[in-house]
């Protein structure tokens, strides 16, 4: 796999824009159609926001979020790593859209926009590594 981007930012809400902008530029360089690019940037933004909200209680300068984008022969691989407390994947579930209420849409967006989403194993007792994959062209 070829690394297209690796960028780390503090786990603070105002810094997430940097991750989104870097992802947008990377996807533009890869020739992604604007609609696909915007969807992928939204999914990455939602995943990073989940980390800030749930992993760092709304934000912490001591926390770090690192985004990696890799090219895997027609498939884009997005890895979002953080040094926060271990997440419980069973609690990361999209909600029923028929239930009209604020919040809880982020996980739904990620599932809709990515082909696969999985927490990869991480050594130690803290930290998370979320991997999202999206096929962008035929192999």
């Amino acid at each position, binding site marked *: 796999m070829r690394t297209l981007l690796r960028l780390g930012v503090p786990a603070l809400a105002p810094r997430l824009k940097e991750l989104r902008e870097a992802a947008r530029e990377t996807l533009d360089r890869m020739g992604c159609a604007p609609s696909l690019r915007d969807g992928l940037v939204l999914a990455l933004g939602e995943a990073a*926001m989940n980390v800030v909200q749930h992993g760092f209680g709304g934000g912490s300068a001591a926390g770090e979020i690192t985004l990696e984008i890799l090219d895997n022969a027609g498939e884009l691989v997005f890895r979002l790593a953080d040094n926060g407390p271990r997440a419980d994947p069973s609690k990361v579930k999209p909600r029923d859209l028929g239930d009209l209420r604020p919040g809880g849409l*982020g996980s*739904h*967006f990620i599932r809709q926009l990515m082909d696969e989403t999985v927490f990869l194993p991480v050594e130690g007792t803290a930290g998370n590594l979320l991997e999202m994959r999206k096929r962008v062209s035929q192999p």
Partner: protein
Amino acid sequence: MKCEIIDHGPVRVVALGGEVDMSSSPEARRAILGVLSRSGVLVDLSQVDYIDSSGVASLVEGYQLARERRLPFGLVGVSASALMVLQLAHLHTVFPIHGSIEDALADG
């Protein structure tokens, strides 16, 4: 994020622009709910480049409060990127969406 409250005849418009994300959506929420404390609201999304689930949550809160108080609520000039997000959330068929402020006033 740009967030302006504009008096437009009988309605007040909250015009959002730029990126409505986790760090800016509280301001959008305050503006929308603040207007709804006195009147109905139209939220202009024509200049929005990016809106995430936190921004959408502000719109849902506004919509629910307006219904509770029987006040008009609508979105106007929804940008392509905002519409994509509303469609993902299946909210494009829930929120009243108008092409322009004039259309919204004509639609009542």
